[in-house]
């Protein structure tokens, strides 16, 4: 415990915040969203964009930030470095969009690819890293999963609730809950494979 105590307080707080992002703490994520969105909206509105553009760009950047923090591709020093990073991604994405051919004629989200530097990071497809295309398939498959499976998997993997709590909520015993979860995962994998 001694090791914990000698760390400067600011560090502990920052670590806690970063840890909270990693475990999908809704309060922390919402806080991050609320603090950073207004700046990005100003940027986009001042540069020929609409509020809808700002929302799409920001949400894309937000997901990219979250992914990079989760995978330790970006290791923030403190909360302000997170905010700065998020703004930079959003700015790059908006610049990319303005430069793109699709500007003025198509839906924003389809034109929003990651910036080159971030793309490099995301697309390194060593076996250890998560392949972006496969990830997109899983995300898409999850959208199409039935509500009971979606709900169960969300509680388990996003909210990180314990098996015990989920079993209680579903009024099932632990073994049936585990089995149900497994079957949902199989279904998800099947759907994702078929998207290939």
């Amino acid at each position, binding site marked *: 415990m001694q090791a914990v105590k000698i760390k400067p307080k600011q560090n502990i707080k920052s670590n806690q915040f970063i840890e*909270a992002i990693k475990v999908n703490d809704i309060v922390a994520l919402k806080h991050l*969203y609320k603090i950073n969105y207004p700046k990005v909206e100003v940027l986009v509105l001042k540069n020929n964009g609409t509020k809808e553009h700002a929302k799409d760009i920001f949400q894309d950047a937000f997901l990219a930030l979250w992914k990079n923090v989760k995978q330790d591709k970006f290791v923030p020093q403190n909360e302000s470095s997170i905010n700065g990073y998020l703004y930079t991604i959003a700015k790059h994405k908006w610049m990319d969009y303005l430069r793109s051919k699709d500007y003025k004629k198509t839906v924003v989200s389809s034109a929003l690819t990651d910036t080159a530097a971030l793309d490099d990071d995301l697309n390194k497809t060593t076996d250890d890293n998560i*392949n972006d295309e496969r990830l997109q398939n899983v995300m898409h498959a999850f959208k199409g999963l039935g509500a009971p499976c979606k709900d169960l998997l969300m509680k388990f993997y996003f909210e990180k609730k314990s098996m015990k709590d989920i079993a209680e909520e579903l009024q099932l015993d632990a073994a049936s809950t585990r089995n149900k979860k497994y079957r949902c995962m199989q279904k998800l994998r099947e759907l994702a494979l078929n998207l290939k």
Partner: protein
Amino acid sequence: MNRNTKITQELLEFVERCLNKTASNEELKKFEHKLKNDQEFKAQVADIKTLLFGIESQVLKEKLDDFHEELVDVPSSKTVPVKSIYFRKIAVAAILIIALGSFWFLSQNTNDKLYAKYFIPDPGLATTMSENTNFEFYDAMVNYKQKDYKTAINKWNELLKTKPENDTLNYFIGVAHLADKSENQSIQFLEKVTSTTKSVFKNEAYYYLALAYLKADNVELAKKNLTFSSVDNSKALLYELND
């Protein structure tokens, strides 16, 4: 993803335990070994990782719109003109009646409401797997983060036997009790932290102590403890309590 490999329930649960660091040391060794030597296993692990990350990503993506709605949800009372003074008078009277009625109805459990609004469990300390001298402490931290507060408390209580004065332990046991809805038990642990002269958790401990008192309907002690804390929310809560 490979259609030809089958991921069994046993395999899925084993890999999950290893990824979220709840596996035993023995299992972790086995995991590392297989990862190095078994190409099929390696591919299966990559598949599982992608599935898990995909679920989290999509859930978050779907939640972002909710975040956004809360953001733009600014009350626009100015844009709703009340047309006649007569109507306005009736409206005021109606609101007063509703307000008084709800005050009477709601005042009994204001403390609970404020508590629910302000209580967010401490996110805990980062748990890293390697070279941890405090394995037991961080092992319980994993339970704490999974909201399995009872297990975390039991494990930490064991450690507390040898280090009864340790502020980190007292702090997290206190917060875990509070999160586990046993505010009365949390008070003794948190008070131990606030009475420690030099503790990095002192500030937060005062805040959670105030919340514990609030939950126990002791508003005076809640207010007193809030004045000692400079946590962002303590001022806001104090303001609401004094209101």
